[in-house]
């Protein structure tokens, strides 16, 4: 669906539009005049041209996260990267141990593979964060067992924006010995600094389309220096160090490389600008009575604001604001099922409050005028629905 002109897009955590500068680079790879060759075809110039672009993109993505270019394994997105990390480590190390540690607030792209591994005989510990969404690294330490082979913790939560203390968790894992640490960083690029090598991470999942790149491409960063070994899940050509067979989509990875390069270059300025807009949004929404902010504000990424509205039924809230703003009630990947956010439930919000919560995610193209329009639209909706509900809480 194409949004109407007056609809304000505040769902950048679900996906972002491709930056026009990125789209231009991608287009150069598609047509006869461009680098359309198969990057695996090194017997002619067409293939070599494409391969050069793929390797240049690999350098750009690696630089954005502090990894070595050889660590980058292209995937179709963060979901595939998460699957490759979890199943890849679990299967490769199945004779060493079969225990995994993760958190209840992870993305479904981590939780669902964990459930599947449980069905196949692995055991998984699901840590419960505090009410603000933060994990205590001591929880991770306490959960580790002699047969733990993998810890998987996301960097920036996709629903509430809370930033986990990855450095401290990495230190816990390092102290334990051979346990591998996987971090889902789909929401991090261009928003929060992350240095793969300096933090001593083993695996890192990345997505292009959350950072103004195209959908359908991502990467799993696999540390060579730390000797991480994975079982491949896809076969047929041996591309990507035998870890991910299949023709590399030149235009997609070129787009990801360009997007990550831009995100890194503009991170400081963009984060500062978006943080001001987010606080402007919160000041506006917070002036309504009965509005609760989810996630610890001082540990939340600049682009995200998740709030619960007391005294309003969730479906009606979303319907009332839909003509004016594009927001989410939770993860875009799960919100179609109309269930209250499992992330907010894990934080202790009751079912009704979890249902009547909205995730606002701001981005590169968000303006002050759009934020003000969103505040006005939500204020009107909240006032009307509380009046209809006869709720004790009324908008001021």
């Amino acid at each position, binding site marked *: 669906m194409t949004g109407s002109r007056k609809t304000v897009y505040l769902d950048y955590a679900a996906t972002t539009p491709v930056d026009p500068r990125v789209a231009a680079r991608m287009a150069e790879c598609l047509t006869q005049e461009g680098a359309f060759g198969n990057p695996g075809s090194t017997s002619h110039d067409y293939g070599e041209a494409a391969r050069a672009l793929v390797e240049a993109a690999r350098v750009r993505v690696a630089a954005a996260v502090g990894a070595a270019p050889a660590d980058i394994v292209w995937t179709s997105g963060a979901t595939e990267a998460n699957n490759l990390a979890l199943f890849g480590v679990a299967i490769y190390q199945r004779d060493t141990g079969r225990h995994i540690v993760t958190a209840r607030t992870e993305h479904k792209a981590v939780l669902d593979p964990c459930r599947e591994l449980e069905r196949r005989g692995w055991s998984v510990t699901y840590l419960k964060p505090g009410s603000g969404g933060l994990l205590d690294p001591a929880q991770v330490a306490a959960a580790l067992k002699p047969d733990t082979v993998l810890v998987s913790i996301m960097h920036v939560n996709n629903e509430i924006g809370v930033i986990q203390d990855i450095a401290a968790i990495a230190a816990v894992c390092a102290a334990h010995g051979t346990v591998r640490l996987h971090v889902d960083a789909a929401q991090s690029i261009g928003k929060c600094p992350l240095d793969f090598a300096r933090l001593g991470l083993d695996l890192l999942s990345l997505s292009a389309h959350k950072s103004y790149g195209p959908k359908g491409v991502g990467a799993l960063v696999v540390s060579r220096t730390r000797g991480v070994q994975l079982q491949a899940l896809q076969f047929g050509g041996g591309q990507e160090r035998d870890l991910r067979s299949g023709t590399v989509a030149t235009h997609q990875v070129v787009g990801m490389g360009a997007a990550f390069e831009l995100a890194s270059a503009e991170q400081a300025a963009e984060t500062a600008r978006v943080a001001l807009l987010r606080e402007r949004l919160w000041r506006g929404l917070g002036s309504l009575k009965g509005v609760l902010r989810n996630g610890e504000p001082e540990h939340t990424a600049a682009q995200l604001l998740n709030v619960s509205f007391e*005294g*309003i*039924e969730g*479906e*009606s809230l979303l*319907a*009332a604001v839909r003509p004016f703003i594009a927001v989410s009630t939770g993860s875009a990947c799960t919100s179609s099922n*109309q269930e209250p956010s499992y992330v907010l439930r894990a934080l202790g919000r009751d*079912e*009704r409050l979890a*249902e009547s919560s909205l995730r606002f995610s701001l981005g590169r193209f968000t303006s002050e005028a759009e934020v003000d329009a969103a505040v006005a639209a939500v204020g009107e909706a909240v006032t009307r629905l509380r*009046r*209809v*509900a*006869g*709720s004790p809480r009324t908008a001021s």
Partner: protein
Amino acid sequence: MNYSDLTWRHFENPRCAGVLSGAAVRRGAGGSRAQGTWVQFDVRISSRNQESRVEAVRFLAYACPHVIAVADWVAQKAVGGPTEPVLPESVHALRERFEVPIEKLGRLLIVEDAWIAALSPPYRETAA
């Protein structure tokens, strides 16, 4: 979720949202906020020539757009009608009229519960 034009009109502008008070007003409610759907009807009864009629209806609803729309429609349609504890249309007819998904049938039954509660003895009258 998509809503029919009729649902959207009543949801966006629920003209009968509110409460009534007075000796001739009967109040009934169904469902619960804790369970996610709650509806209350206030029904003012007029009696002339030993005949009772619904004179005015107001409702409150903590509910989804479908339930708000149906409650508003019922509140409008019932005016001038009899005071029996029967909806102006059956729940199934309302479901078709508003194109309510079958999985929400239970929520429409809460609208019916609230209407029946308002117009069934023992009457619960609102304060004057």
